[in-house]
């Protein structure tokens, strides 16, 4: 009996090795484990056995049945795996073909700079305010201590619309408007971004339309040192933590004292290079302490209040930061130019 079982077992083992398809496997299952299968038929011997022998045979029978099942199942798994592998192989794609173009647009570089500056100041408690682009001579000049006939008006050749109305030549009129509109004459902390216009012919460094951001702080005990501290934060945030700033005396009719501000060159760190014209410093903005005539003209008592103001040109900042050499690029809007700015800044 045992020999018989051993024979069937060996038969099965050798046949399993030979088969190549799932169908063969099914045939084999029928041949050995089907109703008339050679293993199933072994049970016919049961009748001829004693009770004691039956028990022994039962154990042997179950063992070979289980063994056969395991063998066939293992083979089945093997076949299925092969099948799957074949299917996967057929599904191979060329991962190097281009991906779907999901166009997400981008922010204009000038807006990027304006956003960045606005965020710096908003985080310091400044409000962002706006003013009209078509402005009165009164606000654009007169309230800023630039009466008609003042020689400093030459520096800002303006587009007039009537004798009293013009396209604003600076964002400074928003200073005067903000102070004027503050009926309580309470402290002010604002920045005013916007478009300005001057009668300059367009070339690589001049544009008849450009942007400016004006900053104004009016409060008790505001000093030149406060201006410096504030602009230091701006310079470091815009051009890197290692930057320093330098004050040079200058003249603007609406500030006294007036200050021209240089930032240490972010390219060479102050050693001198082509960007800073070998000086180690780059001029970035004009600023100063609000002129008492401006305060007075807008209803603030200059004996009680002092303030500082500054004006920065986003074009200049963007040109320096990103190495743009022609200001006209901002206004021709070549899509490739715009695309270049459609990414995080990186750097530090």
């Amino acid at each position: 009996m045992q020999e018989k079982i051993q024979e069937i077992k060996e038969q099965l083992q050798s046949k399993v090795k030979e088969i190549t398809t799932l169908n063969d496997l099914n045939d084999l299952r029928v041949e050995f484990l089907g109703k008339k299968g050679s293993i199933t038929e072994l049970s016919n011997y049961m009748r001829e056995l004693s009770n004691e022998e039956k028990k022994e045979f039962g154990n042997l029978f179950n063992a070979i049945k289980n063994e056969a099942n395991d063998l066939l199942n293992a083979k089945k798994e093997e076949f299925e795996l092969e099948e799957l592998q074949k299917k996967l192989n057929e599904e191979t794609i060329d991962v190097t073909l281009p991906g779907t173009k999901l166009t997400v647009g981008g922010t204009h570089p000038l807006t990027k700079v304006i956003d960045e500056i606005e965020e710096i100041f908003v985080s310091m408690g400044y409000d962002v305010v706006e003013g009209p682009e078509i402005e009165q001579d009164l606000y654009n000049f007169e309230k800023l201590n630039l009466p008609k006939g003042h020689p400093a008006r030459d520096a800002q050749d303006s587009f007039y619309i009537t004798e009293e109305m013009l396209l604003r030549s600076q964002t400074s009129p928003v200073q005067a408007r903000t102070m004027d509109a503050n009926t309580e004459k309470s402290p002010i902390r604002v920045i005013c971004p916007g478009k300005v216009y001057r009668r300059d012919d367009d070339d690589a460094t001049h544009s008849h339309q450009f942007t400016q951001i004006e900053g104004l702080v009016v409060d008790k005990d505001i000093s030149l040192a406060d201006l410096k501290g504030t602009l230091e934060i701006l310079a470091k945030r815009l051009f890197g933590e290692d930057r320093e700033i330098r004050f040079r005396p200058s003249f603007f009719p609406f500030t006294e004292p007036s200050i021209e501000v240089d930032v240490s060159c972010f390219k060479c760190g102050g050693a001198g290079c082509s960007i800073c014209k070998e000086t180690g410093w780059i001029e970035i903005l004009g600023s100063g302490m609000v002129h008492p005539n401006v305060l007075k003209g807008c209803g603030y008592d200059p004996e009680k209040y002092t303030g500082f103001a500054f004006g920065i040109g986003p074009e200049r900042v963007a040109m320096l930061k990103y190495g743009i050499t022609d200001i006209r690029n901002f206004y021709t809007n070549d899509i490739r130019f715009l695309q270049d700015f459609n990414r995080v800044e990186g750097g530090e």
Partner: protein
Amino acid sequence: MRLSKKFVSDYIDINDIDMSELAEKMVFAGNEYEEMRPFCEATGLVIGEVKECIDHPNSDHLHICQVDLGEETVQIVCGAPNVRAGLKVIVSKVGATLPGGIVIKKATLAGTESNGMICSLAELGLESKFLKEEDKAGIHELPDDAPVGADALEYLDFDDTVIDFELTADRADLMNIIGMAYEIGAIYDRPVHIPEIRVKEQGDDINNYHKLDVATENCSIYLGKRVENVEIHESPQWMKERLMACGIRPINNVVDISNYVMLEYGQPLHFFDADRLKDHILVRMAEDSETLTTLDGQHRILKSSDIVITNGNEPVALAGVMGGLSTEVENDTKNIFVEAAIFDPVHIRYTSKSILRSEASSRYEKGIDPNRTELAILRACELLEKYASGTTCKGMLVYDQAKKEDKTISITLEKINQVLGMTLSETIVEDIIRRLGFTYTKKDGYEVTVPTRRLDVNIKEDLIEEIGRIYGYDHVVGTLPVVPMKRGRYSKKATMMKEIRRRLEGLGLYQVITYSLVSEQECNLFVNQEHERVEVLAPLSEDKKIMRQTLIPSLLTVLDYNLSHNNKDIQIFETGSVYYKEEDYKEETMVSGLLFGNYMGNTWQGNVLKVDFYTVKGIIENILQYFGLNGRYRIVADETKKDMHPKMTASILVDNEEVGYFGRVHPKTNKKDVYVFEISLDRLMMKKVRTLKYKEISKYPSVHKDLAFIMPKSMESEQVMTILRKVGGRLLTEIDVFDVYEGENVKEDEKSIAYALTFQNATKTLNDEEVTEIFNEMIHEVESKLHIQLRNK
């Protein structure tokens, strides 16, 4: 203003100071400069004497010269036509350099050895405006007494250094050499010496010849002196050099003296030919359309805002701007009437703006120290006596209404330190006041006396700036304002613009910024002339003269630019103002966009989304929904929009008010398949939006049903949808179009639109009967109201 080292050295000792260091220190005192350079950029120039000069045998113009240089005699081949034996000349020796980096080497010219070069003034690098005809034609001829072998630059006074300052508009006091000396004195703490003026006054009394009347308040000082029997010739070399160093062309001794004194004192002078001027001098405002022929020969028509000097009848000079031709000093002039006056800056500015900005007018415009006028006129007489052999008449014509007292400013140490944010001591502040040439008395704080030459220092803050800049702003240590903490805010409009910008960028559009000023042609596009335009008075060009009333033409310009640079797919937007004249000028903020070409997709897979009306509509709806306007907006066909395709344009209504429009550009305006939109942000901003609040999602299952109708092609889907929505009521939670069909099985003038409906009840499970009832009612309502049929019925 150009600073000549030689000139300023008359008033302050700076011989030991390096000029580039001085220039840098001036910058940090607030005076920027454009350039610093030697007056003449040449070295190794000596005075030589041509001992022998023969024509070169192999040349038709060269000469072979033996030139005595003192220590040696060298052979030089020279091509100048005026070279001759006996002439004293400037010789550039072998090894010497000339401007432009030229190094003189031993050379062979037409076979003859030449050891150096005889120079013309042009070769020394003098600006061409300073060169006379003879300087351009040949070598420079030195006087016979020029010392052979001496340094030629020193002899010509050309060994000078010039710094070209770009002064700020307030520093009128630095537009003269004495003012520069005071500034340098303050920076370096050195004294300034003003030499005493000595006029002999040996002539008759001026009142015998001239009488003065001033009939305008725009002249605060008018002084007149008469100098007789002048001899006109060239100025001394040192004077010519100083004028040239300061950028003024030497003419003759008399003209040069008037310029020299102006440079020295900052007071412009005018010299009249006294005999042509006649006896009466009347200063008054011009009459409209009065005429004057000025020095440059131009016939000028005057305006009533011009100040004129007249001879009692007619104008003889435009005050402060230019003299008249009829009274000009000429070579035969004998007697001179010297004018030193102060005119109103604003009037001079207007006159000079329309005629000529001269050295004189630019000084008048910025202001003149009234205490210099008399000094200047006397200085001119002194120089005319000395260098033009003139005789000054006794007495002076005087009209003087000017305030000449020094200014006093009260200030405290506390205020100075408060504004500067520094802690300067009394000693430092007092020392700076002294260095500036100001004086002070101490009581409760300081009473500082400021001389009239500092026209720019009038109030406390001016004085604080003076102290700050002389002490040095590099000492300021940055602090932050001590102010209450608060949150910075963006305006509602700024916030909205940022939101819409980010949304449109997310939808694939690039932000552009274009010019507000447009051409007439652009201004006529897309807008009817319902709003009056804003035009600039003096446009720079025809294409930038009107403030735009729509952003779309500018976007089309950007499209054209990009297409001509081979950028194919353009999706852009801009946020910006448009401008109307109205009663009081109005600006409206718009967001506009342009889409052209392929929007998104993958070309090789064949699933590219080409921009069409519905792409733009998707973008518009996305924006409107983002702004919380779902259910409140309608997109309505609009045939009225100018320059838009009448059948492919829709206006956008929110709460039944138009906020904008979009669609395809009219093929007559742009042949390409271009889509644009424009929305008024101002109008959109007026729409109040409910606060965002979460609504529980229904827990009960939803039921989906589809239906399709056959309808005429001309019918709008919205008509069907409106009925479906109305009948569906609250239970109809979603409605979508999933198919639009024309073609087989549908008549030629008809279409089929298929709708997918979702029903859901928020509070219970919907049963089939309920849905079927609504569904049947929908079909019935649509069929009976619109007279169209359910498909496949």
